[in-house]
């Protein structure tokens, strides 16, 4: 243990010597130092860093997710290694990326993050926050579904900067008291554009992708290669008149459905499972081409990889991954043909017993990221009714 610590202190010292010392010193000499150091704990910066290297920070979704991670992954890890895991909750994907982009030093504050969606994996890479993980140090990776690993590797040149952790879908939720199962299945994606449901529909306002995805399905197009974008906008414009509320959070989604304020909406599969567990009359519909996504544990540049890999391995222990799955109602990334998955988890929407994920359609990161700015702004206008 002591040796480990020494080594870590050396690393810290080296990284301190290497770069970034210039402006820090500049600041010190110029005399702003007094104030600047006062407000950021300057002279203790080095001490903080050394102290920080004995711990690793993991940002996740808080609530039951963090509880499960703490109990089944973090605490055993701390017991085994003596390294403290600081678990923090973030406010959302976009806000977290903003924080990471504005943080200093790299890897100082943000180490591991429980991120969503493949296109965000690509965004972190494009911004240069990726690392190269040593897969041999994470033996539990062997249990993870191959398709999920390959998807990530395809973006980071055959390497991994994250381990896949869980799986979800944005499907369609509907109120079974108001809409029959037969009708929902017959309409499929078009249920979201059904005129007779005027004033009883909802959608996720914060994400242009989800809205465009289902509009593409509704107009018979491939969501990952939309040929007629104008048709998609036209459909969304019409749909706006039918929408009661563009929800902004999972919490809002659940309360709108549970209270009967809306009868049908696009919905995150885990949230629908949560509602069903509590006995609400909510059905889940996954039409052909349902929007699927994965969540992964991303290791951010500057993090001590040895510690991170060890921790990732703890998190991928079936016991931990399954507990998290139960907590947040999204199935784990573990391959059901290699690991025993309890029945409760098997029943979750988006669970695939074959472990092959055939027919799961993920968003193509290049396609969506290259249009992000333009479409996000266009979507704002459509939403505002302009």
């Amino acid at each position, binding site marked *: 243990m002591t040796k480990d610590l020494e080594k870590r202190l050396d690393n810290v010292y080296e990284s301190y010597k290497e770069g970034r010392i210039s402006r820090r010193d500049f600041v010190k000499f110029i005399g702003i130092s007094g104030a600047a150091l006062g407000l950021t704990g300057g002279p203790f910066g080095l001490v903080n860093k050394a102290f920080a290297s004995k711990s690793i920070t993991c940002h996740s979704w808080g609530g039951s997710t963090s509880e499960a991670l703490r109990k089944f992954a973090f605490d055993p890890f701390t017991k085994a290694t003596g390294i403290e895991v600081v678990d923090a909750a973030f406010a959302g994907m976009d806000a977290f990326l903003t924080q990471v*982009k504005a943080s200093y030093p790299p890897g100082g504050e943000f180490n591991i993050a429980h991120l969503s969606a493949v296109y965000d994996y690509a965004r972190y890479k494009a911004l240069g926050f990726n690392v190269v993980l040593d897969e041999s140090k994470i033996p539990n990776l062997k249990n993870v579904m191959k398709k999920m690993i390959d998807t990530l590797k395809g973006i980071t040149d055959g390497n991994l900067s994250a381990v896949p952790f869980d799986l979800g879908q944005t499907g369609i939720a509907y109120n079974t008291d108001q809409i029959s199962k037969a009708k929902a299945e017959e309409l499929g994606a078009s249920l979201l554009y059904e005129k007779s449901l005027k004033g009883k529909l909802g959608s996720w*306002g914060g994400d242009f992708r989800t809205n465009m995805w289902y509009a593409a399905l509704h107009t018979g197009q491939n969501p990952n290669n939309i040929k007629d974008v104008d048709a998609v906008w036209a459909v969304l414009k019409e749909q706006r008149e039918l929408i009661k509320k563009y929800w902004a959070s999972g919490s809002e989604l659940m309360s709108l459905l549970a209270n009967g*304020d809306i009868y049908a909406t696009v919905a995150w599969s885990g949230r629908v499972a949560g509602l069903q567990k509590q006995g609400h009359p909510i059905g889940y519909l996954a039409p052909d081409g349902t929007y699927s996504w994965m969540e992964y544990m991303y290791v951010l540049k500057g993090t001590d990889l040895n510690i991170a890999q060890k921790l990732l391995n703890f998190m991928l222990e079936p016991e931990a991954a399954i507990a998290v799955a139960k907590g947040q109602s999204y199935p784990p990334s573990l391959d059901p043909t290699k690991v025993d998955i309890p029945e409760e988890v098997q029943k979750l929407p988006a669970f695939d017993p074959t472990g092959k994920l055939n027919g799961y359609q993920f968003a193509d990161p290049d396609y969506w990221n290259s249009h992000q*700015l333009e479409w*996000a702004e266009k979507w704002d*206008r459509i939403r505002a009714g*302009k």
Partner: protein
Amino acid sequence: MKNKSFRPWLLLSPSLTAVFLLLVVPVCFVVVYSFWLRAPSGADIPAFQFGNYAKFFADFFYPGILLKTIRVALETVFFCLIMGYIPAYFFYKTESKFKPFLMILVMLPFWISFIIRTLSWINILGDSGMINHFFLQMGLIKEPFAMLYNEGAVIMGLLQYLLPFMILNIYVSLDGIDNSLTEAAKGLGCTEWQAFREVTLPLSLPGVSAGCLLVFVLTCGTYLPPMILGGPGDELIANLIFKRVIGTLDWPFGSAISTILMGLLAVIVYTYNKYMGISQIFNALSKE
């Protein structure tokens, strides 16, 4: 004499240092960023160009949101004033032994997170909320009455948040009024109402104007009530900034919108301070 001219600066220095380092300098960064470019990845490219401003004024969409924000802010100020003055006056006049307790109650809503308080309106105004539930049970209406997700609901959420600011500002100002002045007015034959109109009301104006300014400015920077209680067209300028800065990671454009908003607010606050500001009113009073 020398000593005296130096004293205000001594008193001001801690505040000025803090505000300078944590506000002025960072805001300068924002202004600089507003001339930059955004790379497709979301990284920022240093540049000096006015593209972000040109984009804002390219059509009526963005300026329209700004104008709408100002309108909603003025409406909120109006309702806050109507709802806030009388309770503040009540606190000033009341001789109840519970007065401090009633004052603390005004601040009590803040103990429950703003997000929770705002979400809570859904349970009251929603289709299956308290009010609709009550009227449906009574048989007064057949269909739930839609009260949520419109501009009215947004203003309601804003009022809930901002009313304590208005009440306390007015109260503090009322409480500073020398009682002998109203007594004197009454002694000269004024009725209670006349004394209020001629003495109390004018003397409470610093608090009223401070409260109005505060409510106006805070409305312009708030994004939670429109997000939670508003319909699709009810977003305000702060929502837009939030979406640009955080949603699309477009810091340069987000900075440009912020700069425009800050410029507008700075003009308003500066004018306010100059023509009807606290110091102005004080000067008038002290000359008497």
